[in-house]
Every structure is written in structure tokens, then in C-alpha cells.
């Protein structure tokens, strides 16, 4: 036993690394990913607003992309989504929660009622990312909706 324990520990520590290939990314680069999600399943955490989004131009490892998103409130009669402007232009943040860092800042502009374009969308590395749609007042985040994507 005196020999076995350190031997097992040594074997574990010096085991060769094995590359594990990821499953094909289906959240971004597959052909169906450009479709917009309009079921209002992506909800802001506090206000009850929801959003739909889709790629206008998909980012690559070297080029920036852009996405379009729409914000909705629930219809008072039947709860169906009604497109609504936010009080201020929201921000889109790209964040890698496991790694603990973001990407470059994006630029968001309103293009119609409750419709916004986020450009300069660039992921600095592949992996699991969050797209944070944030409603801010000054520097304070009032509300946010989170979309998980795997690049």
C-alpha cells in the first residue's frame, strides 16, 4: 500500500492529455441559426419584457458580425407579444462566464419601433458564450436577458 498510493498518484498526474473534440456548434454557425426566435421565450429578468433575436451577419474568427433583436411587452388582453421601445438604447455584452472575460464592446442602434441592431459583434475565442441584452440607466444595469451560445 505504501508503494501503490504514490504510484497511482504519479500515474494520474503524468497521464497524457487527451483532446476531446466538441460536438458540432449548433447555436451559431449551422444553417438554421440565422432564424429569429419569435416565441418570446427569452425574458428579461425583472421587467417581464421579452425579446427575439437573429444574426444579420454571423461573426467569424476574424470578422465582426451583427445581430438584430426586437423587444416586446405582453399584450394586456391576451398576453401576446407587442413590440415596444425601451426607455433607452439597450447594450449588448458578449461574456464568457466560465473564463471570466468578455469580448470587445458592441455598438447598438435603434432601427425601428422596438427593433435594434447590434454591430461590431466579435467573439475573441471559441467556447461557451453569453449574449447579454442589458437595459441600463447610466452605468447601472436595470434589467437583462441572457442568451447562451456555443461558438
Amino acid at each position, binding site marked *: 500500500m505504501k508503494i501503490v498510493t504514490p504510484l497511482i498518484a504519479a500515474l494520474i*498526474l*503524468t*497521464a*497524457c*492529455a487527451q*483532446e*476531446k*473534440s*466538441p*460536438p458540432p456548434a449548433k447555436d451559431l454557425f449551422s444553417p438554421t441559426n440565422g432564424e429569429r426566435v419569435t416565441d418570446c421565450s427569452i425574458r428579461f*429578468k*425583472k421587467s417581464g419584457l421579452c425579446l427575439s433575436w437573429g444574426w444579420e451577419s454571423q461573426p467569424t*474568427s*476574424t470578422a465582426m458580425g451583427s445581430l438584430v433583436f426586437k423587444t416586446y411587452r405582453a399584450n394586456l388582453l391576451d398576453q401576446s407579444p407587442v413590440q415596444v421601445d425601451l426607455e433607452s438604447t439597450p*447594450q449588448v*455584452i*458578449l*461574456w464568457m*462566464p*466560465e*473564463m*471570466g*472575460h*468578455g*469580448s*470587445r*464592446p458592441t455598438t447598438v442602434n435603434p432601427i425601428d419601433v422596438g427593433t435594434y441592431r447590434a454591430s461590431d459583434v*466579435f*467573439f*475573441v*475565442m*471559441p*467556447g*461557451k458564450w453569453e449574449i*447579454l441584452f442589458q437595459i441600463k440607466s447610466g*452605468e*447601472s*444595469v436595470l*434589467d*437583462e436577458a441572457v442568451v447562451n451560445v456555443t*461558438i
Partner: protein
Amino acid sequence: MKRLLTLPFKIALPIAMALTVVAPSVAQAAACCGGGFASPTIIAGDQASQFTLSYGFNSVVVDNVDSEGYWRRWDEHQQVQSFRIEGATLLSDRWQAGLAIPMIQRTRTGDTHSGLGDVAATLGYEFLPDWDYNPIRPKGVGYFQITLPTGLSKYESETGALDTRGNGFWSVGLGALFTKTFSDIDAFTSVDVHRSFSKSVRTSSIAGQLQPGFGGNFSAGLGYNFTAFRIGGALTWVVEDPVKIVQPLGTIDGAVERYTTASLALSYMKSDEWAGTLSYLDQTWFGSPTNTSLGRGLTIQIQRRWLR
């Protein structure tokens, strides 16, 4: 108890060379985004003082290993160059102090950022001396290290971690380094545990408190010495607790970071005063990496020593 002042060259050479090689292997941080813990600057040979310059070039080859262990690569990789100045001196027969000042430069697709990394100061004590060159007992140096958050951390970056140069936290660590020489073979092992401290952060992406935890390094290596040369290899295992980001709208839990750096080194000791080492480092060979990037690189190191 009086230390031997004159060390036979055959014994001094392997010890000195082994420690020349320890530093770059321990220093190797995660390839992409800073992190890790600064390597200790320790005198483990028989010198009174030492001054070390090292230059490293590291290329990310696996951009992301996620918490499920999936390896992801892109065709565009980050490249990291580092320039490190280190000095250490004896304060008394068994106490010593050291300082390390790194400069880091990161480049990706023509975008380059550079600056000061995390400065680290070390206070060491030779708790296990080898004054009589015991054939079995190793020499042991314990150390306390404090790391200053002089390098920008990935949490504070506005460029997707391309401008990160360190951990960005105040941290303290305790560790020990053991060395032993058996004829032409030398061996070393080191272990340290460190604790980083919380800080507030406000960027365009996050605003809240960063809550890091503990981390640890464990290294082991062997070398073979012939004439004025040494060839050797070492492995360094690194693990870091998740860093929580506590924000008003919720907490991001983070994930454990883990990687192993293998190094192969060739050293040349021109004299008792001068030594040089060329090391190859690879993070894709060993271990079970998670939540990190993996890189390969070369390090050149020149060391000047002043004997006791």
C-alpha cells in the same frame, strides 16, 4: 553550524542548473488570459545573490478548453511575449528576499497590447539546509510570496482579454522548494498554495465584486548534468478556484481552471557566475485541462550569480 563556503563544482553545478530551470516552468501561466500565480524568485543554490533576465514567446494552440473538457481551436491565435526581470539576495545565512517584474505583450490579428504584469515579492527561509551534503535528505526552502495587482486582469479587460497581463488580485502564498542531487542527476519539487483577495470592478461589461479563492501549484522535475551542460524536464500542475462575480442582477459562478505545463530545458553554465537556459514549454501534453487556453512556447533565460 557553519555553512561550507566552498562547494565542490561537481555538486554545485547540478544544483545551480536545476534551479535555473525551475523558474520558467513554474512561471508559465495559462496561455490566453494571464492568471496563474507568479513564480517564486528563490536562491536554491550556493550563491549570495542572483539576477535573471528571461524572454519567452508563447503561442496559443488551443483557444479554449471548456469545463466539459472540450478543446476548441480557431485559425487565428493569440501570441504572448514576456520579458521578466528577477533578482534575489540573501538577507542572512538562511533568509532571502526576491523580486520579479514581468512585462507582457499579447498580439492577435495585428492587435497588440503590452505593459507591466503582476509584480511579486518573495521572502524565503532555508528550513532544511544541506550543509553536510547528505546523500538522502533534500535541501528545502520555504517561502512567503505577495503578488501585487499591477497587471490588468481579464475581468477588467475591454478588449476580450487581449490586454490582460496578470491575475489582477492582491494575493499571498506559501510554498516550499526541495532540491536534491544524486551524482549527475538532480531533482526538484515545489508546492505552493495561494489565496487571492476580493476587489470591486466596473467595466462596460460587468459591475460588481470579484471573489477569487485559493489556488495551488505543484512542480517536479529531473535533470542530467554533463560537463557544463544540463538537460532536464519538468511538469507543473496548476489549479485555480473559480472567481465569482457578484452583481446586483445575479452572480456569475465561474469555473475551476486547471492545466499542466511540461518543459524541456537545455542549460549551459559558462562559469559559477553565468548560466543560460533554453526551455520548450507545452501545455497540450499532460493533465486534464479545463476552463483554460493551451499554448506552446520557448523561453530563453540568462542568469548572473554572485557566490557566497
